[in-house]
């Protein structure tokens, strides 16, 4: 097992190098830099030059890249051009918010998707199955910003059930209920796509499993349907779903950009958009790198989990 994990870790190295080159290249080729974005008659080209110099933007690309990677390897993601402080600090301040949102959304997705996916597979062609299927199709086809706007309009503006943004009410003491209250809408919006697709994966995986020979064996042993499905079927059905879940991480990160913008959620997605707009390269690169690492770790965990769940995987 350790060797398996090690091997997977080693495999991530070239991926990370590739990612770092790609994100650096894109930034390097991008037009405009943070200094030149000001239109101000009082700021003279010399000032811009001076600022570029300070930011190291005048070095040749490979030097910039090596410097950057060198720092990253030491755990230093650089200094924000705009906020003039370590990118590490900025990300660490926002990361918990994004994580809370992502974890809540994935829990939301899993908790609803798996039972309904299983039910709809075991009752194929029932009303429940059709409803689940329809729902999941619609869930996958709805752009999440649109869903978000609609939910905001209905539940926040028209009905006033939920706050319209932020992660907690300002100027009131901390309360867990207040946090949850703020979390619900963004969680639904971020989780809906993955819930829908997870539901479909669970359903089809389960359908696949219940046609397997060992399910027939379990039936021949005289077990009740419930035992057959939940004891013999579910675990096998979950194996492919786990990998899918690993692959869902990027959609969560991507979705967080939209959801955080919609709900004024101060996480890394919002930070990313701000940084792109402001050409804050260290932050952009750090965030791309960071979330790529997150995805890589997610996949790694999924693989490891997969290996744990599926005894057939030899490591």
């Amino acid at each position: 097992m350790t060797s398996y994990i090690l091997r997977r870790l080693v495999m991530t190295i070239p991926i990370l190098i590739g990612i770092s080159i790609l994100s650096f290249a894109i930034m390097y080729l991008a037009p405009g830099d943070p200094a030149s974005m000001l239109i101000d008659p009082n700021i003279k080209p010399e000032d811009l030059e001076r600022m570029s110099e300070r930011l190291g933007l005048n070095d040749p690309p490979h030097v910039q890249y090596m410097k950057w990677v060198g720092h990253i390897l030491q755990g230093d993601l650089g200094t924000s051009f705009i906020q003039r402080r370590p990118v590490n600090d900025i990300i660490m301040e926002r990361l918990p918010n994004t994580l809370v949102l992502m974890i809540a959304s994935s829990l939301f997705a899993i908790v609803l998707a798996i039972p309904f996916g299983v039910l709809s597979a075991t009752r194929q062609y029932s009303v429940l199955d059709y409803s689940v299927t329809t729902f999941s199709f619609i869930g996958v086809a709805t752009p999440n910003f649109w869903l978000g706007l609609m939910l905001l309009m209905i539940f926040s503006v028209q009905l006033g059930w939920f706050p319209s943004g932020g992660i907690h009410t300002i100027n009131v003491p901390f309360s867990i209920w207040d946090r949850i209250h703020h979390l619900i809408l963004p969680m639904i919006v971020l989780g809906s796509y993955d819930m829908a697709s997870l539901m479909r994966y669970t359903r089809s995986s389960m359908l696949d499993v219940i046609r397997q020979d060992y399910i027939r064996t379990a039936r021949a042993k005289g077990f009740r349907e419930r035992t057959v499905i939940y004891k013999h079927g579910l675990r096998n059905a979950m194996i492919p779903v786990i990998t899918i879940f690993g692959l869902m991480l990027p959609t969560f990160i991507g979705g967080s950009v939209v959801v955080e913008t919609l709900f004024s959620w101060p996480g890394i997605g919002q930070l990313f958009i701000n940084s792109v707009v402001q050409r804050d390269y260290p932050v952009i690169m750090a965030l791309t790198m960071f979330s790529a690492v997150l995805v890589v770790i997610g996949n790694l965990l999924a693989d490891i989990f997969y290996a744990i769940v599926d005894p057939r995987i030899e490591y």
Partner: protein
Amino acid sequence: MTTQTQSHEPQTAPESKRLLEVRHLKKHFPVKAGVLQRTVGYIKAVDDVSFHIDQGETLGLVGESGCGKSTTGRTIIRLYEPTSGQIIFGGQDISHLSERQLRSIRQDIQMVYQDPFSSLNPRKTIGTILEEPFSVHRLYSKKERQERVEALLEKVGLNPSWRNRYPHEFSGGQRQRIGIARALTLQPKLIIADEPVSALDVSIQAQVLNLFEDLQDEFKLTYLFISHDLGVVKHICDRVGVMYLGKLMEIADKNSLYDEPLHPYTQALLSAVPRPNPNIKKRERIILKGDVPSPVNPPAGCVFHTRCPMATDHCKTNVPEMHEVKPGHFVACHLYHE
């Protein structure tokens, strides 16, 4: 064991009649593991196998699943690069020819496969499938190709007007006939048939076996016939080789082998075959212990010693060489050697 292996070569026919000669053929597949996926060992799928086939002859290869029959066949036809050893076809060593050099040889050796469902491209009509070898070698005109395809279909007992149908429209037996027809398109000298009837029902199997026989007569074909069904091999082959764990254990004329098997493995194998005859008295059956060991770490010495009822300590350490015990009857077993 340092005996000159050359002297142990089965020699039943003058060189001139030899179509194929396989010498010390080895095919090892790397096994990768560890952090860097380094090669940690090899599956010795074929491990030092030597035999020959004469013109017009049918050589059978039998053995249990995983013993390396298919690998042998596929290496001969150069689907796999041999690890070592020589494949001499029609006097020419083809074991290290490049893909380009092989092109002309490819016309002479063809293969028939086991799975009638997987061996035909489901997206092509059988006409196209059968014409493909021509177009690869740029033979004949379009019209001529068609005629030849129709003739071939007729030959294998299918209606020529079915050229435009897809494989899925045919039953397993019919598909197997198409597979045979395809092997015949380029008028090969040698056909390697890898379990061509294993997937078929008895009644269909008989049809296909008969077809093999008929075609051999008509086209003077030479077969390497791979099967695990001892009955089938007995029926169709002239000589039979028995493989176990990548090694050839015994090779002999059919009757000699079936009537008087020498190798304990061959004996066990033959005794294990259920006889469709309730009248005969229950024979003494040799039941082998356990399973075939893994080809990654085959036992030292004689690979069969772990299951052999007659194994001695000598067998555990020394690899037995092939010896001609009776004329044309070769066996690799210490029992018959000193």
